[in-house]
């Protein structure tokens, strides 16, 4: 969305888009089954697979570095009421992007927003946070602290 939307709305949307992008296909399919009848869905951009260059500050100096490429799938759909839903997700699963775009469009519908936040976004967000915390706990013991002596010429 563009400048016409308040920045608060943009960040709320980017939050749910991030949650949808991380959700697995089975999770999205399960939630899709919970929805009833939907308006007509038009594919503005059918699901398509492409590549993204991943950049990161992996060097010692902090400069951006091209880590490598990852495949992504993206999709844009429009519902009967005109809201445009978009989705980007890692991988090549077209159905996943299609469902995520559909949910994005539905979340922009004020009549459905609250319910979807409650039954879709909040549970997924909690699960993803939990998974992240678990992983952190697992790897924490392997952390190594490096101490460097001051060099002579420093």
């Amino acid at each position, binding site marked *: *969305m*563009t400048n*016409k*939307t308040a920045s608060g709305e943009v960040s709320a949307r980017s939050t749910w888009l991030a949650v949808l992008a991380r959700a697995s296909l089975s999770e999205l399919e399960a939630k899709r089954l919970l929805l009833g009848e939907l308006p007509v869905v*038009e*594919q*503005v*951009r*059918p699901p*398509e697979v492409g590549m993204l260059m991943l950049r990161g500050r992996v060097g010692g100096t902090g400069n951006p570095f091209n880590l490598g490429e990852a495949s992504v799938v993206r999709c*844009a759909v*429009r519902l009967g009421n*005109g*809201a*445009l839903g978009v989705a980007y997700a890692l991988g090549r699963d077209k159905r996943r992007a299609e469902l995520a775009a559909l949910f994005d469009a539905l979340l922009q519908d004020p009549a459905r927003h609250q319910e979807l936040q409650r039954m879709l976004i909040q549970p997924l967000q909690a699960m993803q946070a939990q998974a992240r915390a678990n992983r952190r706990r697992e790897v924490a013991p392997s952390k190594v602290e490096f101490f460097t002596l001051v060099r002579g010429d420093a």
Partner: protein
Amino acid sequence: MNTTTSLAPGLLDEVHETQSAFRALLDALARPGEVRTLAPALPGVALGGAMARLLLTLCDEETPVWWQNSDPDLQHWLRFHTGATVAPHPAMASFAALTDVGSAPALADFAAGSAASPEFSSTLVIELPSLQGGTDMQWRGPGIEEQRRVALQGLSADFWRQWQVNHATFPQGVDIIFTCAEQIVGLPRTTRAVPLEEA
């Protein structure tokens, strides 16, 4: 909501539809004056089928497009599907979409490339009322055996004078693709065109 509510879809089968459009365009430019047929107009896009499909086929994020008709819906549509930005001035355009050739800028206003890089010139896509029934012109040049009679409609004598100048600046100069609904005719800078009575 904003313009996303009116955003029209692009090509449904992007890979194959752009390939067939590109093939038709290659043929049209290799055989100036011969009519090639692309596919029907796209739903919700206020452009002829050939022009819309050529823009989707040719443009990407490195090719600014100059629009004679600055319809924000069209500009947004092309930006969404190809990443092509809007060129603020004809001289900065890789491609130009012209829908009313009578009030269009002069050919010399578009980018002609440089002697070292003639490929940095503009390619004009011009929608005409018809590709036949206009003033008879004789076309000669590479891709035409002897000569070909072409009678594009809606082009003034002044346009053809400008075209002679454009032809004379070879290897620089613009190339033109004339469109009418689903059909296209190519006019590359190598083609010489003179009125039939003078030929």
